[in-house]
């Protein structure tokens, strides 16, 4: 749609995610939801009815690992391009010290941040780690193909780690979804691909400056020649 900083004389719009990233993100999100539903149906007898969404218990059991492999590919494809943006800096610690202000919707007294704050970085790194744990433990308990590859005591360990890691991952996704709902103006980054200048000014000022600077630098050789 748009990968340039623009303004209409009132509102600045900043590109945050490319079309590829948005499609990738929503594929990952749908896979995550399907994995959670099929996984929970096997984890809790009271939620076994959810397996009907997949065509019954055996079908849910059969499809779950394949969905998992697809998620590993889509998640790490998305995550690979965002590694450098998620390195933790000193500013993140200052931000964390002021977490009370963040939670109280106060915008003053917080450090200027790059593209992500520590909460977002936390979601990024914890999901990356949990998905690796889920992949390893999931392969070990994939009876159909790897039933004989590991010992029974290892499989017991893998099964218990898999279910706990999955539930922690779901809890973290709750935080991720809630944060997007709570912080108004965020969701459009993943639908339209852009955020407003005001949103970036409040939440990620260092990133805003970077984006504005990069845009002007690109425009500088022929500032009047821009198509408008």
């Amino acid at each position, binding site marked *: 749609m748009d990968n340039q900083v623009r303004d209409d004389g009132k*509102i600045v719009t900043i590109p945050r995610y490319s079309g590829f990233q948005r499609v990738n993100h929503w594929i990952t999100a749908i896979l995550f939801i399907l994995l959670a539903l099929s996984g929970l149906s096997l984890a809790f007898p009271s939620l076994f009815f959810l397996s009907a969404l997949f065509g019954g218990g055996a079908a849910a059991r059969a499809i779950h690992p394949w969905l998992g492999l697809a998620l590993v590919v889509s998640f790490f494809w998305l995550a690979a391009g965002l590694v450098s943006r998620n390195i933790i800096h000193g500013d993140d610690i200052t931000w964390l010290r002021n977490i009370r202000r963040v939670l109280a919707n106060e915008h003053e007294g917080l450090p200027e941040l790059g593209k992500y704050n520590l909460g977002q970085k936390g979601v990024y790194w914890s999901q990356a780690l949990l998905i690796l744990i889920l992949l390893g433990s999931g392969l070990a*308990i994939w009876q159909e193909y790897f039933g004989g590859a590991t010992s029974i005591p290892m499989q017991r360990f893998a099964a218990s780690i898999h279910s706990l890691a999955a539930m*922690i991952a779901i809890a973290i996704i709750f935080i991720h979804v809630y944060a997007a709902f709570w912080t108004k*103006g965020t969701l459009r980054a993943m639908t339209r691909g852009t955020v407003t200048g005001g949103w970036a000014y409040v939440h990620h000022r260092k990133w805003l400056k970077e984006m504005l600077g990069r845009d002007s630098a690109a425009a500088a050789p022929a500032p009047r020649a821009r198509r408008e």
Partner: protein
Amino acid sequence: MAELPSLDIRRLSASTAVPPRIRAEATTEVAKLIDVSKCIGCKACQVACSEWNDLHAPIGENVGSIQNPPDLAADTWTLMRFSEVESAERGLEWLIRKDGCMHCDDPGCLKACPAPGAIVQYANGIVDFNEANCIGCGYCLKGCPFNIPRYGREDRKAYKCTLCSDRVAVGLEPACVKACPTGAIMFGSKEDMIHQASDRVEDLKSRGFDKAGLYDPAGVGGTHVMYVLHHADQPELYQNLPADPRISPVVQWWKGGGKIMGLAAMGFVALGGFVHYLTSGPNEVPEEAEEEALAMRRKTQERSAR
């Protein structure tokens, strides 16, 4: 989904239904007693099992042991495990143990199973798989402390000895019991079998096997398949029969504490978000911020135009 087809169900896997209790106290618990000291290794029990249950394991290869086939399988529900043991005090011994499901009173397979009604424990103590409800996850293999259930490669379902629940239901003894030519395999009420075993253990002790005893491990609540062992102090001699089997603490945690921890994490976060939104409200971008951003853009544009 889970149904209770009879009054004689004590436990049902992955079910929230409460099994009927109306005649639970009146039902006699059954047991099979395998007297290892009387076994001659003829394999009549293996044949009778295949025949009654109509199992057709492919013809295997001789691997140089009287133990044949080499292991339990989806289509081999009982197997004589053969050990040649040499010791200074007793010389050479052939120890033959008929292996198969032990029908634990506290079955690890049933605890691990996520499919409603795929594993049933009857009031008489028999633990049975209902393959119609089996989803093929293989969790029962991980739950079992005796390494008994086997996974069917083609149909992706788990199988094991049923203790001939179909025969027992109509008052017959299991097929292996019927076929055993030396009376090494017996069947009856658990109480009677314990009696029978104690007489036999006494007999064995009088003949020099002073460590003879009954194998009815308490760690799994006792079993509905029991052994008379001539060396009850060393069950491992009989191809690693576990001395103190119990549902692995890892499985207990997976099906208990781990789930509670996971649920607590999800619930805490969901509730936290709900309360936070109600108390703090949305985090909105003030209009001035949009103006600030626009001013900032203008400034950077001017600076680079110069």
